[in-house]
């Protein structure tokens, strides 16, 4: 098993006053092909952990390696490059751009790679097919249901074939039926080989995932 992501002795302290220690001595390894749920109460440091994993933020102490590269050695440009090529994000509030179609939103996931417009649209269409929205390409975000919007966001995360997809409460704004569909989508994508880490409050959802990381007060309590 190759490690996609390795966190070693990671601390994250938000400068005060008073300083808040969001992560304390966290050690986590995510391997290729993993499907991991991160659970824990609010304020346990789940989102901070996800931001660290996705190189959106840097740790106060410790090392984070993405595919063997220590992110401390990368400048903003290379770190951004790493995000655009190797990492896909999915957010609770979808964060789609209103006023442009579903396929254009997905294509946006490739804009910072310098990919040509026609190529972006072509690959976005494939990604939308993959999440089951082949028939919604030209719809605007406000013409889609919550579940469909989250599928568009997932397609945007997948469009660049990232090494890992990081989802922060992807079902937090969805009803249980739709959550179930999204969970099935993640399982399906994982079965095709995508490495996925999902933060969730939903214990039912977490229970369906082969691996769970439980967090409490900034520490990783239990790694199954």
């Amino acid at each position, binding site marked *: 098993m190759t490690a996609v992501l390795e966190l070693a002795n990671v601390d994250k302290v938000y400068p005060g006053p008073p300083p808040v220690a969001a992560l304390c001595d966290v050690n986590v390894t995510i391997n290729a092909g993993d499907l991991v749920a991160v659970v824990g109460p609010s304020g346990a440091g789940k989102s901070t952990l996800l931001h660290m994993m996705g190189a959106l933020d840097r740790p106060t102490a410790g090392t984070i390696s993405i595919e063997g590269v220590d992110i401390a050695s990368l400048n903003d440009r290379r770190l*951004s490059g790493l995000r655009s090529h190797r990492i896909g994000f999915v957010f609770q509030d979808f964060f789609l751009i209103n*006023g442009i179609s579903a396929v254009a939103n997905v294509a946006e996931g490739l804009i910072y790679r*310098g990919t040509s417009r026609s190529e972006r649209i072509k690959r976005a269409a494939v990604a939308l097919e993959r999440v089951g929205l082949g028939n919604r390409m030209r719809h605007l975000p406000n013409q889609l249901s919550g579940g469909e919007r989250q599928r568009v966001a997932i397609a945007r995360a997948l469009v660049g074939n990232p090494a890992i997809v990081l989802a922060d409460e992807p079902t937090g704004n969805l009803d249980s039926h739709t959550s179930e569909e999204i969970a099935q989508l993640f399982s399906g994508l994982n079965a095709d080989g995508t490495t996925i880490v999902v933060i969730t409050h939903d214990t039912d959802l977490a229970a369906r995932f082969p691996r769970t990381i439980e967090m409490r007060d900034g520490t990783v309590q239990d790694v199954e």
Partner: protein
Amino acid sequence: MKSRLRLLDAIGLGVRGLSSRVARAVLTATGIAIGIAAIVAVLGISASGRADLLATLDELGTNLLRVEPGAGIFGTGTDVPEEAADMTLRIRPVEQVTATTRAEATVRRNDLIPELETSGIAVLAADTDLLAVLRAGINEGRFIDAATSQLPTMVLGPVAAERLGIDSLDPVPRLFVDGTWFTVLGIMEPMEIHPDLERSAVIGYPVAATLFETTRSPTTIYVRSDPDFIDDVAEVLPATVNPEQPDAVQVSRPSDALDARRAADEALTNLLIGLGAVALLVAGVAIANIMVISVLERRMEIGVRRAIGATRGHIRMQFLIESMLLSGIGGVLGIALGAAITIGYAASRDLTLAVPPQGLALSVLAALAIGAVAGLYPAIRASRIPPAEAVRK
């Protein structure tokens, strides 16, 4: 692995950012448009006006001197020698000389109007080359010549003609001058720098001498000189025309009035351009303000863009392009508006249209520069938002 954003895509992002808030973009761009329109219109109108003024100056020439030999403290030119005009011609750089003498007479519509009602119209005896030396023209009819200056005939200035109610030479009008009926031969063209002639009735020296005992002692002498020596000529004129009382002689240059007007026009133009510049400055502040608000509102978008791989530079560029597009659109609208105002004004005033192209190019550059400067702070602010914070719930 580096992030890369194509320039075309970056511009596309800017356009999309603006088009998602059209009303706001239009309102913000209006400020720039007004400032640019004001500057373009002021430049255009003053350039058009100046072109005409310069043409007038060219046509009339700046080498004409107007000499009033007896205008000093001792009153009218009774003491001025009759050969004053001839003496003037002996100054070497002088090219042409002509003189007028005020006749002791009044011009009236007919013999029933009281003698005191002169309507402010002077009767002047003049040489037949008066108009040639002044480079003035006749509007209708003809000027007095060697033959008609012996006869009771006259030519009217345009203002005099209007005051006497004469707008046509058909039928030939006749006017009453101190007991003699004079035939009106012609009406002179307006003469911007010779308002005294516009208000006068011009007759020949011979007939003036016969009827009103007018001498050759001139009231006004007009001198055309070699332009290079005009100051020297002006200096020796008083002693030449009135050796006994050089202090009583007044020498002026009629074109100075036009020059002064040009200077005043320029000062006004500069002032208006200054006002336009202030408008642009205010518009720039408005753009900066609206961009700061935009950055605050679009925190999430910034976070998502950073998450999908935008560098700080890409975010900065996106907001800078938006700001420059905003001011650039304003600039183009402003130029169109300013040009339209200039064309309309020039057409209504019958001016030669002269919109300086470098002024237009400069306006667009100025607008873009304002956009760049105004957008710089908001763009830097946007780029400094930590991505993890921007995507936090």
